[in-house]
């Protein structure tokens, strides 16, 4: 009974709550378009909520070359995958060593 109620609530709650919104029900997909929030929430009226627009002028003289950023991104990803694969392999080896030791212990008894 609880399971049926849970499924009903999970399906119906978003539809009921957002039924009259022009944005529609909040869907699970990231592509849902939410209703526009009022501009008054930002007193300065520029929609940035305290963040200043970056116009690039501050970047003059300290711009990082794009290829360095791209290289850093790809390098990090490669490093992350290799580190993880090595970590799994090392953990696996430790477990196998313990397994061998225990098997020997059992056979020896």
């Amino acid at each position, binding site marked *: 009974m609880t399971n049926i109620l849970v499924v009903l609530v999970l399906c119906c709650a978003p539809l009921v*709550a957002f039924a009259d919104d022009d944005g529609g029900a909040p869907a699970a997909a990231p592509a849902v378009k939410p209703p526009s*929030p*009022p*501009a*008054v*929430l930002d007193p300065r009226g520029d929609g940035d909520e305290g963040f200043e627009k970056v116009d690039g002028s501050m970047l003059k003289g300290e711009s990082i070359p794009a290829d360095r950023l791209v290289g850093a991104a790809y390098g990090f990803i490669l490093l992350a995958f290799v580190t993880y694969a090595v970590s799994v392999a090392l953990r696996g080896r430790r477990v196998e060593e313990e397994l061998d030791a225990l098997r020997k212990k059992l056979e020896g008894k």
Partner: protein
Amino acid sequence: MGVLASTMLLVSKDVRVELRAKELIYATIFFGAVVLLVFAFSFLGGERPPVDAVAGILWVTITLSGTVGVSRAFEREREGDTLRALLLSPAPRTAIYLSKLVSVTLLMVLVETTATLLLSLLFQVTLPHVGMLVGLLGLGTIGFASVSALFGASLGRARSRDVLLPLLTYPVVMPILIAGTRGTVGLWHGDAEGLVAAAYWLRFLLVFDAIFVSLGLWIFEPMMRSDG
């Protein structure tokens, strides 16, 4: 005994236990007041802080105090081993979860009432549209309680449970903080668009609560089962 009757019985048990000692109520309310003071000293230097900041301070205070309260409430259960006794009793598991949810909510309502009044005093904020504010706080509290009660009960005798509870709870309840602060800001601006925004966030919190209370009811029992 039905789920609702069991829930009411368990809630009244928690309330009676707490009214005798009043340890949780006093400690959590005092903690909330202290946190507000910390924010006041940090932010109040000259001009009144903007409405956004004050709304954020309110919700952060509630979140931190709620965590302290939940943590202490379940610590007391662990000390007396009463949670295990409850799980062994014939009380339905859903009733146990609901009772914890209601008890945590009641505690947090007390904290929120004090925090809101203190906030309006310290930060010179008027409190218009009290009904909607109560709605935002209430729904936000229920959502927070639905998550924290589940994890608080499940943490059992984990060594790092004091650190783990906020670690597990806060990332999940982030939408509540966003909805609560933005809705409160909308209310405190007070104009038509602000009220529309507040109404939107109220509905959002309703959806959040519906989803997470349902999920909590569903997975509380499997989570509380002991393995093997």
